[in-house]
């Protein structure tokens, strides 16, 4: 597969301050690649290196076959970029700003109209009068107004309401269907799971994992809250990859890793009044990567301790990334 993006030993130091360290990854043509990491992990630094805004301290990156630093304009000719905090000129209207970008990208002015209509963006309002969400719409419209083979987006949906986030995901799906490549930086785990084929996870400047979305989903934990009609029979939640975090008669809080179907089948055998399943915040998932190579502290915490929730998932995340099997089961937790 030809690589739309390739980073080899990509490293950036800001003086003595760490930017990113020895990052290697490839993004294939036609792939939607998610780049996950909490704030300060190095996502934006990586993107700035890919776009040639920063010079690598060592290593190199190529974008569409062009060196991102020495041949940046050639690389830029084939990409559309959205910054996490675009510094639009407040005095311009969205239309003027988008026309400006369209001209610079060799598009006809007004190329943005279709995307603006889908995102319900009023192009006549000066940028300075737009809400944060509407400014973000300008960014998203800017990303999708052309036909460049590569879209690089740095947290494009932050500030968008759920309906617009859904529209964004549709736009990404359409771009993927056209065979174009998307590099999507985000700290929104569900968004990345829905949009991407593969996911790279960055922590403290290092790329700690690159996996398919399926592998990612299998490795992270979900929080399941149950309200039962009656106290469940003993052993109801004795399932692999299920941990009881708290159980108070009919209120049960579980953690489930990977496939939730075994648990749902088990729930079908009892009288459940209410159920909610939530994906943990990305920070919780990342905790596993932050606890160091052993990451065993949370396993020793008692079940039922609410504060152990994040740690439990963190341990699981870390364990999965290290290729080990998570052994915490409901049975262990009950013991």
């Amino acid at each position, binding site marked *: 597969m030809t690589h739309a993006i390739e980073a080899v030993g990509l490293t950036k130091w800001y003086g003595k301050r760490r930017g990113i360290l020895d990052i290697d990854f490839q993004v294939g043509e036609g792939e939607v690649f998610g780049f996950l990491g909490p704030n300060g992990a190095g996502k934006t630094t990586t993107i700035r290196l890919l776009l040639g805004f*920063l010079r690598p301290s060592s290593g190199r990156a190529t974008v569409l076959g062009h060196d991102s630093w020495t041949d940046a304009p050639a690389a*830029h000719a084939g990409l559309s970029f959205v*910054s996490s905090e*675009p*510094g*639009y000129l407040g005095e311009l209207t969205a239309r003027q700003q988008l026309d400006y970008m369209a001209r610079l*990208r060799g598009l006809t002015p007004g190329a943005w109209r279709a995307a603006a209509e889908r995102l319900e963006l009023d192009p006549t309002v000066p940028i300075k009068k737009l809400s944060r969400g509407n400014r973000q719409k300008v960014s998203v419209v800017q990303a999708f107004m052309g036909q460049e083979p590569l879209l690089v987006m740095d947290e494009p949906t932050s500030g968008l309401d759920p309906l617009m986030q859904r529209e964004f995901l549709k736009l990404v799906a359409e771009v993927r269907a056209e065979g174009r490549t998307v590099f999507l930086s985000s700290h929104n785990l569900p968004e990345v799971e829905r949009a991407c084929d593969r996911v790279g996870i960055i922590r403290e400047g290092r790329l700690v994992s690159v996996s398919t979305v399926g592998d990612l989903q299998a490795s992270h934990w979900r929080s399941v809250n149950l309200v039962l009609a009656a106290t469940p029979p003993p052993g109801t939640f004795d399932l692999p990859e299920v941990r009881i975090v708290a159980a108070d008669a009919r209120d049960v809080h579980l953690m489930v890793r990977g496939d939730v179907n075994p648990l749902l089948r088990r729930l079908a055998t009892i009288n459940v009044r209410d159920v909610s399943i939530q994906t943990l915040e990305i920070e919780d998932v990342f905790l596993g990567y932050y606890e160091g190579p052993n990451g065993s502290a949370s396993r020793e915490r008692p079940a039922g301790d609410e504060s152990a929730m994040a740690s439990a998932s963190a341990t699981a995340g870390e364990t999965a990334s290290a290729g080990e099997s998570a052994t915490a089961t409901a049975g262990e937790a009950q013991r």
Partner: protein
Amino acid sequence: MMTAFRLELRRGRMLVFWIGLLSALYAGFITLFYPTIIENSADFEKMLEVYPKELMAAFGIVGSLSDPGVFLNSYIFQFLWPLVAAIVAIILATRVAADSASGFLELPLSTRLPRLRYLSATIVGQIIALAVLAAVTVGSIWAVDLLIAPDFPIDRLALAGVHSLAMGLAIAGPTTLLAIVFLDRGRAGGLAAGILVQMYLANVIAQLSPDLTWLANLSAFHYFDLKPVIDTGTYPTADSALFLAVAIGGWILALLAFRRRDLAA
């Protein structure tokens, strides 16, 4: 490049309009008083005799105020123009640093537009803005001069405008370099303004004491004397060339630095 250039002009137009309006009003208003100065030159000169000649020289008043070169040089070109040129050059030349901080710079530079062309567009914008303001200043003197007598020679005024432009460019070039080096508008603008103030003071101090005349050589204002141009039509070619060399040197170094500089830290 034209797209970036057009936006640069658009962004600078209000600044140029308001500064240009103030310059025109001030220069026109002062010029309007020239006949009064001539009529009462004896009284003015007697009044100025109260002040030490060195102090007068420090502010460009050497000779009779009824002399058009002395009048325009001291009241307009050595007072109004340095202020106008410094304000506009610093604001426009440091805009690239402000755009870097705001994130705007990433928008045009994420397209096929090379860095050098982008910065070149902003530099051309600086030149045009300063040229317009020099023309407005000289033009307002000339316009008022049509209403009064005696006349200032328009060709000499035009030459004065050209030298004024060169002086403004000499501020813009190095300030652009500072803006690229620091990518911080406050630091670059503050440093440029600080250097200009020190140069102004150095020029004033050099006039006050014969022992310190060498200080004048370090000041840009020493090379900005328009009296000979207006009085005799002698264009200060060497001084203009020096200003242009400083301007072009600053811009070239700025372009070289911008080509290899990280755009964020």
